[in-house]
């Protein structure tokens, strides 16, 4: 795997640095730090670079529709709200790539659809590459390409916008 023309076959420390700079992660179980507020959670990825910018964090919080919830801790937020905070956290370092692992896996259908759309639009507006892993085919509408995997093997590639498909 390469990022900004550099191979990511690095030491654990260098790999951590590149993860911080190039990749934004969104997890199924949100993985927010329970001791911190929503705003502080968004700022966590900026700490290794010592470039914390609370104003940018607040802007991202506004962008995901939680502008007035910055002082709340994860335990005071619903699942959908926690995942929105996680989306803002993934975007705070302006990474080129966002990896989302079942981002709506713990949410009901309504919230799952909202989160998928928010995630796709947030990435599209900022020119990010989004790789979204999901079992739910209803969530794939906002994306451009669908790579279908079964039992660990790639079985088809589908271009959603052009409706082109290749079966492998």
């Amino acid at each position, binding site marked *: 795997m390469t990022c900004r023309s550099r191979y990511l076959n690095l030491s654990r420390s260098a790999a*951590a640095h590149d993860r911080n700079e190039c990749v934004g992660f969104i997890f199924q179980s949100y993985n927010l730090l329970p001791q911190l507020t929503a705003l502080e959670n968004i700022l966590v990825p900026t700490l290794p670079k010592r470039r914390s910018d609370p104003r940018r964090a607040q802007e991202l919080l506004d962008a995901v529709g939680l502008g007035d919830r910055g002082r709340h801790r994860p335990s005071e937020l619903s699942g959908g709200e926690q995942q929105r905070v996680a989306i803002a956290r993934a975007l705070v370092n302006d990474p080129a790539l966002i990896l989302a692992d079942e981002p709506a896996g713990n949410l009901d259908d309504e919230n799952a659809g909202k989160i998928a759309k928010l995630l796709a639009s947030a990435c599209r507006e900022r020119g990010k590459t989004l790789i979204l892993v999901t079992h739910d085919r209803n969530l794939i509408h906002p994306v451009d390409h669908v790579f279908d995997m079964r039992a660990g093997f790639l079985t088809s590639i589908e271009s959603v916008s052009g409706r082109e498909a290749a079966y492998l």
Partner: protein
Amino acid sequence: MHTSSINCSVTAELSGAGFATLHDVYADRRRQYAMLLALGFSPAKTAMIGIGIGIAVAGAGTALGVLLAAACTPRHFAMPSLMADLGMIEPSFTALIAAVIIGVALIAVALGVAPTVWWLNKRSVASALSQEGR
């Protein structure tokens, strides 16, 4: 016999509860450290955070213990049983005792943090998060 059985049962129950609580605390901390690694903190920085928290907790506990001991210690006390013949003993708090207390606290921190640091360095971040740190 009956009393000792009850005592054994209570001890076993308390030990089990204590172990379960500590296990959950450790699992939770490990998951949080794995989370920090995933977000781009270096393993060294993550270990330093753990050691820092450990030293802060041990330091606070030691300071609290010293304050309580200073507040509650009687000015004079007689040793019971076999040492009673030695007469009255003046309790004292010397530099050596302070060093021993600090040393014990630091050893406790090292023993508490070592398994977490070892676990974080031996396992991948992905496996740490996928198993939720357990």
